[in-house]
């Protein structure tokens, strides 16, 4: 069934349905949608057109030079920019590096807190709490966790006789530190979807597998995981969109550094527009990221529809 399925008037006697419908002016539906459409037009449709046009022009900041048409010049400039290439590669590593552990943890947490015991309730709260706090607040916490020498991480590593690296200052480590923060922040949110998904796993199938002698791992691998496939697909899509469109922690913790080690696509866009005033470049980069977002979404439209209907 499609998500846009019509709400039929079946079940109402025809004359009553007609009586009900006759009272409604024909333009009413459009009038009801108008407020939403106005703001969607201003802030969702128009901006895409706007960047598409603006990406074709260049106006050097502060030089007083006139706006000039550069065709695809801004795209060429962005794609050739080592900072953009680095940001794109980082974003890919970041997305995969967050997604895989987050999915595994989210499922493990969901399996752990399934029961309605008091202990499970406490665990659920603890695991979910990070996803409720602002990403900026999480960044503030991890700023001190990662503080060299005296931070939480180094303090307790030292007690074990270990010496940690410079978590945010080392360009080989920094991106992984940011990934660690994001895993901590997001795993509990996706856990909720697995909790909901697990409730839809047919009980009989699990019991049948149990009677057939399947151990816990086999039940997970051959019964539960396949039944959870739609949940996993759905979570993957919303996670990817989220990992492409949130950089609050990068702004607070690293500003994309050291030497672009933690630069991500949206941070690159933010930096181009807000700090370097290169609007042409920012517009081109925005359109590239819009294309990526649309590709992810259309590649999984069915999944989105299922989600739009209230997830299962």
């Amino acid at each position, binding site marked *: 069934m499609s998500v846009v399925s019509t709400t039929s008037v079946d079940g109402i006697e025809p004359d009553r349905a007609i*009586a009900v419908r006759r*009272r*409604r002016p*024909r333009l*009413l539906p459009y009038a*009801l*949608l108008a*407020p*939403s*459409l*106005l*703001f*969607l037009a*201003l*802030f*969702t*449709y*128009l*901006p*895409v057109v706007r*960047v598409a046009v603006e990406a074709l022009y260049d106006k050097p900041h502060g030089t007083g030079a006139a706006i000039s048409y550069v065709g695809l010049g801004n795209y060429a400039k962005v794609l050739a920019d080592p900072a953009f290439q680095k940001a794109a590669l980082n974003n890919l590593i970041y997305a995969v590096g967050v997604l895989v552990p987050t999915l595994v943890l989210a499922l493990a947490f969901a399996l*752990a807190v399934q029961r309605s015991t008091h202990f499970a309730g406490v*665990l*659920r709260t603890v695991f979910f709490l*990070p*996803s*409720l*706090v*602002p*990403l*900026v*607040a*999480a*960044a*503030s*916490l991890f*700023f*001190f966790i990662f*503080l060299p020498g*005296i931070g*939480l991480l180094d*303090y307790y590593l030292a007690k074990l006789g270990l010496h940690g690296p410079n978590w945010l200052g080392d360009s080989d480590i920094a991106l992984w530190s940011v990934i660690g923060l994001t895993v901590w922040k997001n795993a509990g*949110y996706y856990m*909720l*979807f697995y909790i909901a998904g697990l409730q839809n796993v047919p009980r009989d199938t699990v019991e049948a597998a149990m009677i057939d*002698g399947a151990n816990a791992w*086999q039940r997970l691998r051959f019964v539960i995981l396949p039944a959870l496939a739609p949940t996993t697909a759905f979570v993957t899509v*919303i996670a990817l*969109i*989220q990992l492409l469109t949130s950089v*609050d922690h990068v*702004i*607070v913790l690293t500003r994309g550094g050291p030497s672009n080690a933690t630069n991500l696509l949206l941070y690159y*866009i933010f930096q181009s527009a807000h700090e370097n005033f290169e609007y042409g470049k920012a517009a081109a980069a925005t359109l590239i990221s819009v294309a990526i977002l*649309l590709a992810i*979404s259309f590649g999984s439209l069915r999944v*989105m529809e299922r989600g*739009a209907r*209230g*997830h299962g």
Partner: protein
Amino acid sequence: MNHECGPGGPRSSHERAWRPAVRLEKHLWPAIIAALLSAVAFLWASPFLWTLVASFRPEGAGSADMASLLPDLHPTLENFRNALESGSFGLYYVNTVIVVAGVLAVQCVTVSLAGYAFARLRFRGRDLLFYAFLLQLMLVPPALIVPNLRTVVDLGLYDTLPGVMAPYFASAFGTFLMRQTFLALPRDFEEAAAIDGAPWWAIIWYVLLPMAKPGLVAFAIVSITAHWNEFLWPLMVISDPANHTLTIGLAAFTRGAEGGKEWGVLAAGTLLVMAPLAVAFIAFQRRFVDSFVFSGVKG
């Protein structure tokens, strides 16, 4: 390993031989798992525990042990006082509440009207318009900060709180949620009202919305959380410190902190930003969880 699952002859003797081990497993495994889970939960909660401990720790405690998770014996509210004074958190609270409440108030109107149209009315182009709404779930506002900032400037809303709110006045997620909620309601009441001559707005306001309250509450929880926590967009729109929201204030505060010295004050500030939602969550857990499961589409 599949062969183990098959029904086999030698199984019964196997079972008998394994019974003591099975019994041991029955007690041992849950204990191991519970211990492991407690350890992971402690690890997960440690940033919060640390914030809590540090925010009540007196300033003179020395920065060498600032990472200690052990609470200080002489807790103090000094850090909270410093945070409130140095960061003008009071003002940021007011601004954040204005943004959150303003967004939600307008959204409640737009999503109720649109949700009703999609749930109850038949009209040309409905499918197309529905997909047009769907687009907002993919082109999430943060991706469009650059062009949207220019639109906000054009509208004369730069550096104003309405400028921060405007891109969120339409909500595809809210529209879907209200559509689902309305679809689940029986039609009898509104038909009766329509036959009695009630206009469409009266039907929505007096008949449908009172029954759709759970949907609105679920949407409100997700909307409030999202906008309380939002950072990047207000950071771009706002420049006057008098218009800063909590997250902008906290970020500036964090970046201004020098090493471990000010951690107590920063911990207190972070706690002040997180506390309202955390407390609301712990009080209304069930509602939050249900709302967020529905909110997946919002990402």
